[in-house]
């Protein structure tokens, strides 16, 4: 039986493009984001992704005011 290729998602955060505003943290329905301890070149504590569990919903992406701080990557396993 044919099975659809399995899709997973990942939330990449560009460390130096995040302003640490927490909007993505508030938005993620699965609570996969939090502000990290490291301070970036703009002086903000950048958000970090838990590492797995992202459903690619885009809530964090559209909540984020920064152009390129968040990238949602779609991974197709063959």
């Amino acid at each position, binding site marked *: 039986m044919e099975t659809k290729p399995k899709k997973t*998602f990942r939330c990449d955060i*560009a460390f*130096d*493009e995040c*302003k*640490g*505003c*927490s*909007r993505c*943290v*508030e*938005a993620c*329905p699965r609570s996969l984001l939090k502000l990290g301890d490291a301070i970036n070149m*703009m002086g*903000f504590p950048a958000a970090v992704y838990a590492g797995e569990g992202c459903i*690619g*919903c*885009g*809530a964090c*992406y*559209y*909540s*984020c*005011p*920064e*152009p*390129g*701080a*968040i*990238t*949602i*990557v*779609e*991974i*197709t*396993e*063959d």
Partner: protein
Amino acid sequence: MSEKIKLGRPAGFFDVFERRPGAIKKNMHYCPGCGHGVLHKLIAEAIADLGITHRVVLAAPVGCAVFAYYYFKCRSIQCAHGRAPAVATGLTRSNPDDVIISYQGDGDLASIGFNHILQAANRGENMTVFFVNNAIYGMTGGQMAPTTLPGQKTQTSPLGRDVLETGYPIRVCEMISQFDAPVYVERCALTSFKNIMAARRAVRKALQNSMDKKGFSLVEFLSGCPVNLKMNAHDMSEFIETKMTKFFPLGVYLDRAAEREPIVRAEMNYDADKIKSLLYPEEIQSELGDYKCSSPVFDKECRVKISGFGGQGVLSLGYILAILGKQRNFNVSWLPSYGPEMRGGTANCSVVFSKSHIGSPEAAENCDMLVCMNQPSVEKFLPILKAGGVLVYDSSTVKLPEGAAKDHYVYGLPASDLANHLGDLRAANTVMLGAIAAVMADNFLDDADKANLDTAMIEAVREMFAKKAKAADINIEAYKTGKEKIEFKSVPKA
């Protein structure tokens, strides 16, 4: 295993913000958590997805979004405070195929430039207005905005907005949707994912309307200014969703683009020569070259008052004299004065000639010549005619009272009757011009000026009636009649 970017930096942004000064070239200048950034992303994504980056012109405001033109991959103009809708009007009228965005804050749109947005909306200009309502003047450090909530503390309402003193928040969507012209008005909130997705749809819908030339669309975004409101991300969204939406309910206020035909306006005329020829009548080549009058009377101010009923052409009569002065290289001023009515009321003008300076353009006293075309003018202006000055009057409408003008040279002729005989009552003023010429020759001019007077007067009439050759001919005939028929009445008695 393969990877692809599902959501990444929107293609409607420049990859690198070269226009932004300083070292940070990937981020915008907004504070952390600012609603402007959220909306900018929606716009950048939409103009790329709709394939219109080459068609969009962004009119940027004064406010925190003043530098919006650093970021979008489109043409932009930064406008004076509140005037983006006026600039956008010019843009859409001159380039109707472009997609025009007027991006404005609440201070910009609903305070300093409020009339501009209302008029643009009421005209149904083909534009998209993105209106960021953050209930505050963000850029200047948190002063009260027209949209600040009752009781909300700001720098300029430290005890909370007092509606008795400063009124209530202004509801822009509700107002704009009362007009007949706009096609689409919606209020969104840049808060939860669900609300942001509604805002995303609204952005696209408004832009689609502009692409389709359907007219005026406005989307208001309740938006966070977490820095000035001193709130974290959570509290900011909660404030908007619980407090702001009470005054500013979310939803679609107007959506009738589907019923409307695309706007087609008259084509703009960019023919510079044509415009020039409309604005500036052709210079007449003078037979007299650059002949300048030599009579000493013009060495200082020569002041003429011309008065009559509105509709008798007293203003144009003065204007012809002013043209004469201009053509003969005098300094000359022409100052009309008339009541609000077009016809029937009284009208007068002052003409002042001088080879030297002109002090006041108003001939208020010490006039050298008074031209009266109706009875009230005599009564009103005889007192400002200097002793030894010249009175010229239309004897078909004026009866000079017994003993009047005894200190003056007096001339009269039935200008209105003569014009009527010539077949055009409207030429009474140029009959009067002929009379004035004769009187000037008698009283003011030296021989050289007398010899050139007719040519000079006729050239002035021709310039006045440039492009109306027939009217010019009638008026030149009227001039000649007036000059011939003028009657000398009396000299000063003293």
